[in-house]
């Protein structure tokens, strides 16, 4: 039972990185400045590297012979366990950045906790990933400040994005049985313990960015359990096309 929980948990970490990386790749060559094109591919590349490490490990723990590619390309959307936040469409650049910022803060806190995991391999992967994520967070929080406190239009766009994405943030801190179990064993991180630190960081950055933290409390949930919106299916249809169309090929 524990092994199942562990592979489920590892898959969640991998799916978050994979799906967000896929979203960022959609920007390829279409960013608002050359430096942003570079930063987007750089972040997408870091995340795909992390996804590979988590998914490979998930496949090994699962013990059914599935490697990183089998997990990435041969599961349907109800088998994906990423947070709803990361599957949200890119929207304008403000949506892309706010999505990134919300995720980066959570990601940093999660990985920080995982560097102290009782599982050496989880701690190793987290230690490697957290260096990259520290940069992601530095970049996204800096841009949130500059765009929030930029022009009237940029503030409006950023606030719109915040208001639209806010309802996808609650799920990040809602622990389920798997996380409670693994958290109690020191193997994973119980996400409910991260909420205060996440909110404090978001409030601090938003204060400088002159953005308002929404007061609505109703939150969407279900991503971690495989209940997604309509967007994920299309994202996967595109991503998985070759593996699905030519199942016997190796690439």
């Amino acid at each position: 039972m524990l092994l199942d929980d562990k592979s489920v948990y590892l898959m969640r970490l991998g799916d978050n990185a994979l799906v967000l990386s896929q979203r960022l790749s959609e920007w390829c060559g279409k960013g608002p400045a050359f430096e942003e094109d570079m930063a987007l591919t750089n972040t997408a590349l870091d995340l795909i590297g992390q996804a590979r490490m988590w998914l490979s490990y998930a496949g090994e723990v699962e013990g059914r012979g599935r490697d990183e590619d089998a997990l990435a390309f041969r599961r349907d959307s109800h088998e994906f366990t990423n947070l709803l936040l990361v599957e949200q469409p890119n929207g304008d650049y403000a949506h892309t950045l706010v999505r990134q910022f919300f995720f980066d803060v959570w990601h940093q806190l999660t990985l920080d906790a995982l560097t102290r995991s009782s599982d050496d391999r989880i701690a190793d992967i987290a230690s490697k990933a957290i260096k990259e994520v520290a940069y992601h967070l530095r970049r996204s929080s800096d841009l949130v400040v500059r765009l929030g406190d930029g022009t009237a239009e940029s503030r409006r766009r950023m606030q719109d994005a915040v208001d639209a994405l806010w309802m996808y943030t609650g799920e990040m801190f809602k622990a389920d049985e798997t996380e409670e179990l693994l958290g109690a064993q020191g193997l994973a991180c119980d996400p409910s313990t991260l909420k205060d630190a996440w909110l404090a960081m978001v409030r601090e950055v938003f204060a400088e960015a002159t953005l308002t933290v929404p007061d609505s409390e109703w939150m969407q949930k279900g991503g971690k359990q495989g209940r997604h919106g309509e967007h994920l299916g299309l994202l996967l249809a595109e991503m998985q096309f070759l593996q699905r169309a030519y199942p016997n090929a190796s690439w």
Partner: protein
Amino acid sequence: MYAQMVDTGMKRVQGLDEMSAEERAFQEKIDAGIKIEAKDWMPEGYRRTLIRQISQHAHSEIVGQLPEGNWVTRAPTLKRKAILLAKIQDEAGHGLYLYSAAETLGVTRDQVYADLLSGKVKYSSIFNYPTTNWADIGTVGWLVDGAAIMNQIPLCRCSYGPYSRAMVRVCKEESFHQRQGYDLVMAMAKGTPEQKAMAQDALNRWWWPALMMFGPSDGESVHSAQSMQWKIKILSNDELRQKFVDQTVPQAEYLGLTIPDPDLKWNEDTGHYDFGEIDWEEFRQVVAGNGPCNRDRLRTRVKAWEDGEWFRDALLAHAEKKSERQVATAKAA
């Protein structure tokens, strides 16, 4: 090439005895293999030609992200996706690096980029062709990066210091891309019948456009002769093309793929491959804006630029606010 048919603005190439003292001293430096640096005196024609050449090259790197970006969301394995993302990131980096080299000649990046968006300055003809199957991604690395390296390795020795140093760095990464591209095509060529068909189809479509990258025969071109005198062009278009064909034919044979040229054959006497006629009318049409993807490519970049205006404006506005606040704080203190 990434820069094609660069206009020097010259009517004919001058001999040393026709030059002013400054021009002669400049040419003698070049002949002696001494690099020209940004602050050195240089003829206006040299400066303008280099700006054209370097900015065309930079634009090619930037537009070149698009045909590859077309497949990055559909890469068939996570490893291939990571390799492709890294390549695209390198290319954006080359673009930035080259724009910086152009800026040493007294233009700004925004100025030269505006010339791309308005259609005034071109990028390489090759990026106006579509990537329609996954093997195209490997084929572009193998052939397009391969052809680019052919030209850029000699340019590491070109007379303008900042450009030659940029080329050294760019070439290292490009040769890596070429090997990765070849590796991808190999996986396809040795794969299932469907994969092999994709690899052959990609080669059929990219072969001739790749040969066109080198540009038409220099013949009596004043611009080529002038650029060679200035050592910002080292080998002729035909020489580079021949080297490329000679290098690539055995690579295709190793893959078991057929180059789509019935006239291609080894010539014992010359020690080179003979190859068929290039359709220069197609090349001229593509350069004139009538290739299969010219409009899409430019429209995509224009849209990205226009959609990003609020973003760039906001960063400027924030920087101004910040410096005003700093001044106010300093005054108060």
